[in-house]
Structure formats: structure tokens, C-alpha cells
């Protein structure tokens, strides 16, 4: 058997190399550390991606067992491993570009790369585990999953950028453990153990994976933890780690055909609510990383909508074209999301390193300082607001197509209403995400500089990170321009992808044509720059600019009840007021209610504190009371059981 026939072993070894590389790098000083890790991780990431995409020929399914551990690899697994490999590759490049940068906090931490390496390795492991419904496989999966959660927590608390890092990190850890508890329960339940039927198992799995994805009621931790995490790892966590939960949902839910109908509709509802909520909360936020966190929630909502329509189309109505398009949309969108989300996080991190802030009300007019970043982020923005000819549009279009297929092939009142409703929701979410990212982009790069940053250093944008970010955006562009690369058979899907390719070339062709025309005109008539006219305001300053708040406030005022704000409007009393500060903060009602419950619970525990008196006799008394109660319970329950007999 040649080495090409053993991809599982190769990926296992690669993940070990990655983890070892991370640990080894901890022994070197901060200048070299990043480069060593970058070389190792970049090689591992690139190799695993290439292996998955090009290396395997002929065979579609692999299995391997090491002792009692069973591993397997199929097409879905290959796709996700390629995604993770790509994510690790770009993350390594970006981290290397930061090395030696004193403003990047994560570089000071010796164990940062160790955590990053083990985190990456655990993601690869999660994807290799064979999930066959046995407890053994569930345990293996969960152990890899737990390592992933733990090290993502370590990555989040690596920086000291935001106040209260440890608290926010601990919230993240706690939430991840609640998710893990649900997942474990779910795995036990579906492996045929006595407590709980299948349905409960799937509910538990849905909640577990849903928390990881940040779906609707469990999204409250996302903005905080992503904001806390250093940008370099936030990109990996938000872009790549989240895909693991999608993988989990695809793996575990698609086995379940019996409840497909119920779960399809539940997923649709959850997806719709999460997508809308996510995009609106992104619109409400004014700090770049929180905006990106909201957008993550939105994209996960879209993906869950895709999984829902796949389940309904495949298992309830047997419309295979719709199911195929939905699945393709889900997979492509998860790949796209891992690309552009990571890219945007890295870009924002670069800006943060430069200016020390991610607050959109302080940034502005950076387009002249960051020339390359401006261009690559424009592509990323186009991609994430799912506009042609970028990659985000491909996934979105396939989702649209799957809904249309379902609409055309099933004649039922319910399906028609649901499909059109979902189509409208997709359109609205698209328009809103355009809003969000126009705001993000223009507040960072366009207009006048709102604040002068004393530490302006162009060195932050070095060659390596501009190459990395440009490469990411170019990869996005490639996927958007040539989605035909994903086509693997001659069906409707291929035709649709072909049409998308044509469309991308159409828009690019028109742009070139009009660009040439403009170029000609400018050559003939000339072009010059002058101060902004602005209806006769001479000398426009940054104080007159539209801020991020004012940009989105008209819409957010309509949604006052859903997204309450804390506003501090000092009234203007004099004709020439000296200084007026207006602050504006988005409240998070779900987090507030959870905090309320937690504080009540804390109070309750405080009242029970008298039990912990420190006296041995008291503890003995408690245990004796407990024992007596237990014995009494045993006696009574057995006697009633006897009575029934």
C-alpha cells in the first residue's frame, strides 16, 4: 500500500507535528518563535489541504484503527480538513508577519503558539474520528472536542487588550462546557442507551452544537469572547473552529431520517432567527470585532437554514436537486466563511495593532495609510456581504436555488409559504449585511481621519501580511469567479455553477470596459483633487463626519424594543455648550437575563453557606441525615414496588 493510500495516518502525523511545533516554539525567544511556528504550521496546513484536494485519487472512503480508536475519512471529512488546513496555513502566515511586533499582545505570551498548535491539531483530530453511533467513538470525538474548546479558551485569554479578559474567557469556557455536556448526553442517547429516546438525543446534540455555533438564544457570549481574543486567533476561532460544529451537525443529524421533518423545520426557524438577529446585532455594534462576531452568527444562521432545507428536501419531499444544491451551498458557504471571516479579523487586528483601537467612532480615513489592506478588505467586504463576483454570493445563490427548486417541485400551501418566506428572509439578511459591512468598511477606511494616532507606523503593514491578506482575498475571488471548479458531475448544479462563472465574468468584463472608458476620459480631460465641497462647508473636518452610530441609528431606533440601548444624552442648555459627550451602548437582553439568573442562583448558594461551617461534627450530621433519608427512600420505594406486585 503506497503512502497515498493512507491519508488518515498522514493527517494524524501532521496534527502531531503541528502540536509539537507549537510546543517547541515556546523554547525560543519572541523574535524567532513566530517564524518557527509559521514554517511548521504553514507547511502542515498547506500539505493537508493539498493532500485532501489533490492527493487522493480513486478511493472515496478510508478507515484506520489504532488500538480501540477508529478513524475514518470520507468526502465530507476531506472537505472540512481542507478548510481547516487552509485556515491554519493563513493563520500561520499572518502570525509570522506579526512576530517582533511589540503591539501585538499575543506575541509576548510564550505559550501562545503552543496553544495555537494544539488547537489546530485538535481540530484535525475531531474531523478524523469515525462517528458510528458507538459510545467509544463518541468518547474519542468528545475528547478531541474538549481539547479544542480548552485551547480555544487559552487563545482567547492570551491578550490583555480588553478589560475583564479573565471573566469573559471564563464565561466562554463555562458555555463551552455546557455545550460539551449537552453533546455528551446527546451522543449517549443516540448510541442506544436506556435513558432518553433518539429524539431527546438529537435535541441535546442540536443544543450542544448550536451553542458552539452561537445560534439564537446562545449567542450572548460570542461578541465578548471574540472581542477579547487577539485578532490572529479570533480569525481562526470564528472562521474555522465554528465549522467543526457544522461538521458535527451534518454528521450526526443526517444519520437521523426518522425525525427529519421535525428537525428540518426546527433548523429553518432557528437559522432564520439567528441570521436576522445576528445581522441586526452586528448593525447595532460599533466596535469592529463585535460587528464581525454578529456577522458570524448571521452566517451560521444561513448555513443552518441550508441544512434545514437540505433535510426537508431530501427526507420529507425527496427533491434531490434542491437537497444537492442546499448541501453544496452549506459546504461552499462554510469554506467561504472561513476565508473571509478570518481575513476580516486579521485586517481588523492589523488596524488594531496600528491604532490601538477597534472602535469605529475613532477610526476613519485609514485608506491612505493602508493601501494594500484597503484593497484586500474591499474584496473581503464584498464577499461577506455576498455580492457578486465574490465567493459569498456563490453560497447564497445556491441557497436561493435550493429554495426555488423546492418551491417548484412541491405543490403544497405550507411549502410555498415557507419557501417564499425564507427567500425573502435571505434577501433581507443580504441587504442588511450590505448595510453592516458598508458601515464597517467606510468607517474604517473612508472619509477624514477622526483621530490622529501618535504611534502611526507604516511598518505594521509589512510585506508578509499584505501578501497573506491579498492571497486570502484572491482565493475568495477565485472561488467567486470560478465556482465551476467545485462541479463534479453533469447535473443542474453544474449548470448553475457554470452560469455563476459566466455572471462573474460578465460583471468583471463590464467593470473593465467602463474602467477603460473612464481612463480615456480622464486622460483627455484631466483629473484633480480638491477639498470636499459638502454644500459649501469650507474645510470639512472629521468632526462633521457621519459616525457609525449616526449611520445605523435610524434603523436601530425602529428596533428599540429588541435591541435596547443605553443612551446618555446630555441636554444642551446653553447657546454655546462647551463639551457634550453622547455615549451609546448596546445592551444585550439575553446576557442580562442570564446574568440575573446567575446572580439569583448565587444568592441562593450564599444562603446555603451556613452548611459550610468548617466543623467536622456538622458535616457528619449532614451526612447522617442524608444517609437516613436515602435509606428511608429506599425502603419506601421498594415497599410500594412490592405492593404493585
Amino acid at each position, binding site marked *: 500500500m503506497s503512502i497515498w493510500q493512507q491519508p488518515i495516518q498522514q493527517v494524524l502525523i501532521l496534527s502531531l507535528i503541528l502540536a509539537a511545533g507549537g510546543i517547541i516554539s515556546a523554547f525560543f525567544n519572541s523574535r524567532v518563535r513566530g517564524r518557527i511556528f509559521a514554517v511548521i504550521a504553514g507547511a502542515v496546513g498547506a500539505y493537508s489541504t493539498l493532500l485532501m484536494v489533490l492527493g487522493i485519487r480513486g478511493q472515496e472512503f478510508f478507515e484506520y484503527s489504532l488500538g480501540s480508536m477508529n478513524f475514518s475519512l470520507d468526502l465530507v471529512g476531506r472537505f472540512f480538513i481542507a478548510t481547516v488546513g487552509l485556515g491554519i496555513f493563513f493563520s500561520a502566515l499572518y502570525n509570522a508577519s506579526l512576530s517582533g511586533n511589540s503591539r501585538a499582545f499575543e506575541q509576548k505570551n510564550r505559550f501562545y503558539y503552543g496553544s495555537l498548535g494544539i488547537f489546530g491539531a485538535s481540530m484535525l483530530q475531531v474531523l478524523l474520528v469515525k462517528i458510528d453511533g458507538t459510545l467509544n467513538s463518541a468518547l474519542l470525538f468528545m475528547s478531541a472536542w474538549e481539547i479544542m474548546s480548552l485551547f480555544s479558551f487559552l487563545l482567547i485569554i492570551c491578550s490583555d487588550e480588553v478589560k475583564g479578559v479573565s471573566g469573559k474567557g471564563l464565561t466562554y469556557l463555562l458555555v463551552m462546557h455546557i455545550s460539551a455536556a449537552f453533546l455528551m448526553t446527546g451522543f449517549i442517547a443516540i448510541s442506544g442507551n436506556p435513558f432518553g429516546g433518539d429524539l431527546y438525543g438529537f435535541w441535546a446534540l442540536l443544543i450542544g452544537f448550536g451553542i458552539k455555533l452561537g445560534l439564537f438564544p446562545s449567542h450572548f457570549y460570542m461578541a465578548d469572547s471574540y472581542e477579547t481574543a487577539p485578532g490572529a486567533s479570533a480569525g481562526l476561532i470564528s472562521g474555522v473552529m465554528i465549522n467543526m460544529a457544522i461538521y458535527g451537525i451534518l454528521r450526526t443529524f443526517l444519520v437521523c431520517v426518522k425525525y427529519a421533518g421535525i428537525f428540518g423545520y426546527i433548523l429553518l426557524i432557528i437559522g432564520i432567527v439567528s441570521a436576522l438577529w445576528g445581522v441586526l446585532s452586528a448593525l447595532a455594534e460599533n466596535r469592529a470585532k463585535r460587528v464581525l462576531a454578529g456577522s458570524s452568527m448571521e452566517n451560521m444562521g444561513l448555513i443552518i437554514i441550508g441544512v434545514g432545507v437540505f433535510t426537508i428536501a431530501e427526507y420529507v419531499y425527496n427533491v434531490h436537486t434542491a437537497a444537492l444544491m442546499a448541501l453544496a451551498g452549506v459546504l461552499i458557504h462554510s469554506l467561504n466563511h472561513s476565508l473571509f471571516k478570518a481575513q476580516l479579523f486579521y485586517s481588523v487586528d492589523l488596524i488594531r495593532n496600528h491604532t490601538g483601537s477597534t472602535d469605529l467612532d475613532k477610526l*476613519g*480615513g485609514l485608506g491612505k495609510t493602508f493601501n494594500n489592506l*484597503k484593497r484586500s478588505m*474591499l474584496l473581503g467586504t464584498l464577499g461577506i456581504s455576498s*455580492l*457578486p463576483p465574490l465567493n459569498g454570493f456563490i453560497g447564497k445563490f445556491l441557497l*436561493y*436555488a435550493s429554495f*426555488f427548486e423546492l*418551491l*417548484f417541485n412541491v405543490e403544497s*400551501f405550507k411549502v*410555498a*409559504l415557507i*419557501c*417564499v418566506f425564507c*427567500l*425573502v428572509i*435571505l*434577501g*433581507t439578511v*443580504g*441587504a442588511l449585511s*450590505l*448595510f453592516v459591512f*458598508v458601515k464597517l468598511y*467606510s468607517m474604517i*477606511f*473612508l*472619509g*477624514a481621519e477622526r483621530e490622529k494616532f501618535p504611534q502611526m507606523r507604516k511598518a505594521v503593514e509589512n510585506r508578509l501580511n499584505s501578501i497573506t491578506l491579498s492571497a486570502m482575498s484572491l482565493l475568495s475571488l477565485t472561488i467567486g469567479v470560478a465556482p465551476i471548479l467545485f462541479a463534479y458531475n453533469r447535473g443542474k448544479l453544474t449548470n448553475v455553477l457554470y*452560469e455563476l462563472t*459566466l*455572471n462573474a465574468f460578465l*460583471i468583471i468584463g*463590464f*467593470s473593465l470596459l*467602463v*474602467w477603460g*472608458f*473612464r481612463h480615456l*476620459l*480622464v486622460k483627455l*480631460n*484631466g483629473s*484633480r*483633487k*480638491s*477639498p*470636499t*465641497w*459638502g*454644500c459649501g462647508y469650507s474645510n*470639512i473636518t472629521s468632526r*462633521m*463626519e*457621519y459616525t457609525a452610530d449616526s*449611520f445605523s441609528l*435610524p*434603523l436601530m431606533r425602529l428596533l428599540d424594543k429588541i435591541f435596547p440601548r443605553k443612551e446618555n444624552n446630555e441636554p444642551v442648555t446653553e447657546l454655546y455648550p462647551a463639551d457634550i459627550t453622547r455615549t451609546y451602548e448596546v445592551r444585550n437582553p439575553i446576557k442580562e437575563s442570564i446574568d440575573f439568573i446567575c446572580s439569583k442562583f448565587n444568592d441562593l448558594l450564599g444562603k446555603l453557606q451556613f452548611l459550610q461551617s468548617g466543623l467536622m461534627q456538622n458535616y457528619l450530621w449532614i451526612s447522617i441525615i442524608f444517609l437516613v433519608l436515602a435509606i428511608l427512600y429506599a425502603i419506601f420505594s421498594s415497599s410500594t414496588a412490592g405492593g404493585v406486585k
Partner: protein
Amino acid sequence: MKSIIFNIVFLFVLPYLMYGIAKKVKAFFARRKGPSIWQYGYDLAKLLRKEEVLSDFSCLRNGGVLTLSGVLAAAMFIPQISGSSILNLGYYDYILFIYMLSFSRFFTIITAMESGCSFEGMGSSRELIFSVTGEIALMMTVASLAFYGKAENFNGIFNAISNGGTEGLIIAIIASFILFVLMLLEGSRMPIDDPETHLELTMIHEAMVLDQSGPQLAFMSFSGMVKVYLFASFIISLILATCKTSSYYWLFFILGIIIISVIIGLIESLQARLRMVHVQQYILFSAAISLILLLSVIIFKV
């Protein structure tokens, strides 16, 4: 091939003619003579010959270019004067149409935000908010029409309507009402936005082009006109599909264009601009009508 050239030529003629006719109608109601109906074309030509003045803050020069190219790409999918679209794509070209318009909107706003002027920020913010509501109406209308004909492209929609008899007529009328409102929204015409206002605080689209000049402004204005033209040709194709006219289609089409521009002019001379608060309601009302369209399609089909 002949029809493609026909379409493309008239794509560069009819849009500003529409605006010109609307202006003429307004002038008639004001008892004035008014400029020639070709005036908008002359204006565009003049702008193209001018020097381009950009803001000091601007760093992307090609906003206008991308706006116009998005609209032109959208024009490839809608059936126009020859009765067929320029590119006859097989699958879901209506979604491509909607997203091409979004593409051009994105760059309009990016270009507006470049100047760092607060009026432009205000205009962009308004444009985005109204576009969200408009997107609901447009998507619901297009989805209902597609569902009516089980149509995977525009041609399928029109075929289904021409075969639908009275039902088709009802659906075409409701849909054209919604599309008319959306046309006014996209082209920033009267009850939604006053194209000739001189008060920046009430502007939407005009506020976004305050700081543009020369070819950039020409591209922006022309893409607005083309948008109106595209929606108008969507409406006309729907209405003509119910009449099953095949010979002299182009004559009827031009007649339709003239009628729509006269209606635009009538509205502008008879009605005042809505208050900003009411604009949202106006568009949302058309979205509610599109819900009725959807429900009637469902009643007809299921």
C-alpha cells in the same frame, strides 16, 4: 444577434429619454415650455467632457465605474425592447438581477462615503434603510412571479403570465404596481425622493452625489436612469405578456416607456414628496401588497 444590438442601442437611448419626458410633463403642468426631452442626454455628454474633481479624502477612484457596470450587468437579464433579454441565462437570472443592483448600490454608497461629508453619510444611511425594505418587496414579488410560472428565469415568468389568462392579468397588474413603487425607490423619484430638491436634509440619492463631478457624476446619474429604465421594462414586459403581442413589439414597448414616464411626470407634478417617516411606510406598503401577490399566486396554483 440583431435583437441584442437593438437592445443595447436602446439601453443607451431610452433611459434619459424617460427622464426627459417626465420633465416635459412637469413643465407642462407648471405652464412652462421646459427643456427638450433630450436634455438629460446633453447633460450627460457635457459631464463626460468635464474635468474630474475628486475629494481630497477619496482613495478609491472607480466607484462610479463599478456602480455603472453593476447596473449594466443587471440590464443583461431583463427583457427589453426586442422582447427578449440580452443574455438568456437558464437558471434564476432574477436573483442575479437583484444582486447586480445590490452590487451597484454598494459602490454608490462607498463612493459617497469617501468624501467624508455628513450629508453624504446621511443620504447613504437613508438609501440603505429604504433598500432593506425595498428588498423585501422585490424578493417577494420576484419569488411569487417565479412560483406562478414555476419559472427558472425571466422568460419563464412572462410565458406563464401570457398563458395565464385573467389570472395572469391580475398577477401582472399587482406585480407592476409593486415594481412601480420600487422603480420610484431605485430611481429616487418623486414621492420617495425629490430629484430637484435644493435642501440637503431632505435628499436621499442626490445627497450621495453631492461631491461628485465630471465622468463620475455622469456614471452615477446614468446608472440611476438605467435602473428606472430596467424596472420600467420589467413592468412593460409583464403587461405586454398578458396581451400576447408579437408583431411590432418594439412599438408597444416604446409606447409603454412613454406612458410610464408620463405617469412619473404626473406624480411629480401632482404630489409632494413624502416625509422621511412616511417613505418607509410607503415602501413597506408595497411589500404588504407583494404579500397579497404571493397569497393570490398561492390561491391560483395550489
